[in-house]
């Protein structure tokens, strides 16, 4: 094949780097301050766009929208946890619950070779034309690799899926050590695969930035003498890798770098179920409640999942449904929206909820039925939680940073013009376009951000 390959028309390739939770505003700031020399140089030869994430703004949902080009009702992933109704239980959605084709599956069908590393919600690995190493929430590396034959090599390289966040909760130094090790191994593996495997589309996702932000964002913002420099050093390490990547690019390869959401400091974590309980919308049979089956269906109107997803206790759908579909359901949703908008921080009396959407206002697609009935969006700083057992409205934990919706970014090398108002599910047609693949077949369904 090598012989023929030489005479073949050079095909367009794409190399994509995902930086989980890196805000557009942070990239602007660090490049302006000269902290990221390689990224600064890249900005001169490409466009840096501010990008919207998805609702709810969590990585699993955002990357699902990235890889399918659809909004959540199009791919069926609505959060890190979801529920079954018989039995009434929480489960964790994985790639096997994703009800749409992924970018790499579409590329494979078009005969393109792919290498996909570490993207969330790709576990268990679905078959691709090339290589796929699952990311966040993959349990065991040996089960997270397609094809299986690559596993011994990854083990030899010391590759790791994710850091151990329990350690991070105990010690920030242990966190930094773990983050550095995991990133080093990820980059080493990335360059190994880039150089040794055939590919038309290569994507490496760096989860570590999100972890860094969750545990150190406030320290960075407050210029903590010990940890702010470590925060910036970490970005410099990534910047060095971007420099090396740039050296490897040829004329046929486009580079894109993107994130899935922004970040800000947490003022308070907010227990939405506690609020619903206080306002009389939710009642438990046992206290502290441990599982959904502790919800007292007869006296419950609504309950919440992380972050800000509110399910109405609907007759015929929830196991102990109380609210009738139709008029009653609509009336309850109206009342709940009002009630949620009134939620206040008990310390400062600031409003917590910025907006509440009915699901059909922001989602469209075959999985709409599975979506929460209301999606509450908080003001930046209020991180909505969905635990059942907490007995306080607000609290602080070792977690310092939370996600923001409108501050993700998309960088495209070689593009001059900025793209206004794009969202993460617009990336797929952009990538297909960069590779000269007709997107018409997939586009019909995928430009479904229509309702954003």
């Amino acid at each position, binding site marked *: 094949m090598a012989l023929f390959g030489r005479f073949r028309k050079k095909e367009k390739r794409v190399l994509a780097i995902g930086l989980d939770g890196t805000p557009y505003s942070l990239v602007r700031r660090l490049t302006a301050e000269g902290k990221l020399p390689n990224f600064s140089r890249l900005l001169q030869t490409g466009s840096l766009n501010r990008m919207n994430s998805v609702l709810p703004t*969590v990585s699993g949902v955002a990357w699902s929208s990235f890889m399918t080009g659809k909004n959540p009702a199009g791919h069926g992933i609505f959060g*890190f*946890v979801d529920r*079954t109704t*018989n*039995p*009434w*239980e*929480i*489960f*964790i959605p994985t790639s096997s619950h994703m009800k749409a084709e992924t970018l790499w599956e579409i590329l494979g069908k078009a005969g393109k070779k792919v290498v996909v590393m570490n993207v969330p919600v790709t576990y268990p690995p679905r078959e691709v034309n090339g290589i796929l190493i699952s990311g*966040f*929430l993959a*349990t065991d590396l040996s089960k997270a690799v397609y094809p299986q034959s690559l596993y011994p090599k990854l083990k030899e390289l010391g590759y790791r899926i*994710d850091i*151990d*966040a*329990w350690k*991070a*909760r105990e010690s920030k130094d242990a966190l930094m050590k773990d983050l550095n090790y995991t990133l080093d191994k990820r980059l080493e593996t990335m360059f190994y695969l880039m150089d040794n495997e055939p590919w038309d589309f290569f994507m490496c996702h760096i989860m570590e930035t999100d*972890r860094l932000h*969750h545990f150190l964002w406030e320290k960075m913002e407050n210029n903590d003498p010990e940890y702010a420099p470590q925060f910036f050093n970490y970005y410099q390490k990534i910047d060095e890798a971007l420099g090396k990547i740039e050296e490897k690019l040829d004329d046929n390869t486009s580079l894109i770098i993107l994130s899935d959401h922004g970040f800000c400091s947490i003022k308070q*974590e907010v227990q939405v179920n506690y609020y619903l309980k206080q306002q009389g919308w939710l009642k438990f049979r046992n206290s502290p409640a441990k*599982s959904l*089956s502790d919800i007292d269906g007869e006296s419950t109107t609504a309950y919440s999942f*992380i972050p800000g997803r509110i399910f109405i206790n609907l007759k015929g759908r929830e*196991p102990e449904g109380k609210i009738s579909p139709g008029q009653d359901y609509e009336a309850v949703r109206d009342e709940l929206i009002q009630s949620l908008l009134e939620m206040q921080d008990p310390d400062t009396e600031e409003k917590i909820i910025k907006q509440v959407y009915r699901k059909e206002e922001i989602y469209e697609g075959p999985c709409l039925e599975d979506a929460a009935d209301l999606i509450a969006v908080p003001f930046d700083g209020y*991180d909505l*939680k*969905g*635990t059942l057992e907490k007995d306080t409205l607000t609290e602080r*934990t070792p*977690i310092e940073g939370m996600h923001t919706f409108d501050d993700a970014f998309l960088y495209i090398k070689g593009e001059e013009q900025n793209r206004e108002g794009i969202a993460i599910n617009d990336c797929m047609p952009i990538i297909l376009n960069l590779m000269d693949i007709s997107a018409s077949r997939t586009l019909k369904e995928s430009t479904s951000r229509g309702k954003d």
Partner: protein
Amino acid sequence: MDHLSELENQSIFIIREAYRQFKKVAMLWSIGKDSTALLWLVRKAFYGKLPFPVMHLDTGHKFQEIYQFRDKYAREWGLDLIVYKNQAAIDRGVCPDKGKLECCTELKTNALKDAIAKNNFRALYLGIRRDEHGIRAKERVFSPRDEDFEWNYREQPPELWDQYKTKAKDEEHLRIHPLLGWTELDVWEYVKRENLPVVELYLSKDGKRYRSIGCETCCNPVDSKAGTVDEIIEEIRTTDVSERSGRAQDKESAYMMQKLRSLGYM
């Protein structure tokens, strides 16, 4: 021969064959329907008198009904019952509230490791079935585990035409699965044919019943009106809800829950 008799014959053959190879064996009895059916087959295989002990791994969190059932039938059937608890872990405070994954690992997996080592068992009979769970589809009737308890499912001999590799290396122990080819429905039909007792949790009460039982803390009932064995058989013939759907506690999802919790997502 009818289907159930054929399954019964095969299972009894496997049970006797394994005992001939390994005298130092035991049977794991979870008191659930499958291992109770297995126990019944083992009793038949040895004409009512078991030549080896029956072991119950007790986490301390089992349903009361399970303990009552265990003690009643251990007495009635004259079993040499070993109840094994990982007391050291329990004393350390391991329990479902502090982490379900750790709890399962300590009170089930490590308890079993201990029990095997202490009693020097070379082989264990288990009542698992292929149709229970995806990963079990790859199981063999004679299935070796190495000293770390690892099951190398990629390197197993095939078991074509019921030819079993019944030998094990010294450092290994063998898991023997006489019910591997049975389905959930087969088990219930066998329960009916042999008039076997089952823990009453399986039968519907107030519109709910358990399809799979274990620790009270980690099992949830499913909606069901099946209050008798006959009604259960009818229900299983028609349902599309999976048997273990009431079990939150798959190791994998327990791991994922822990991960989400560590990041504040739960």
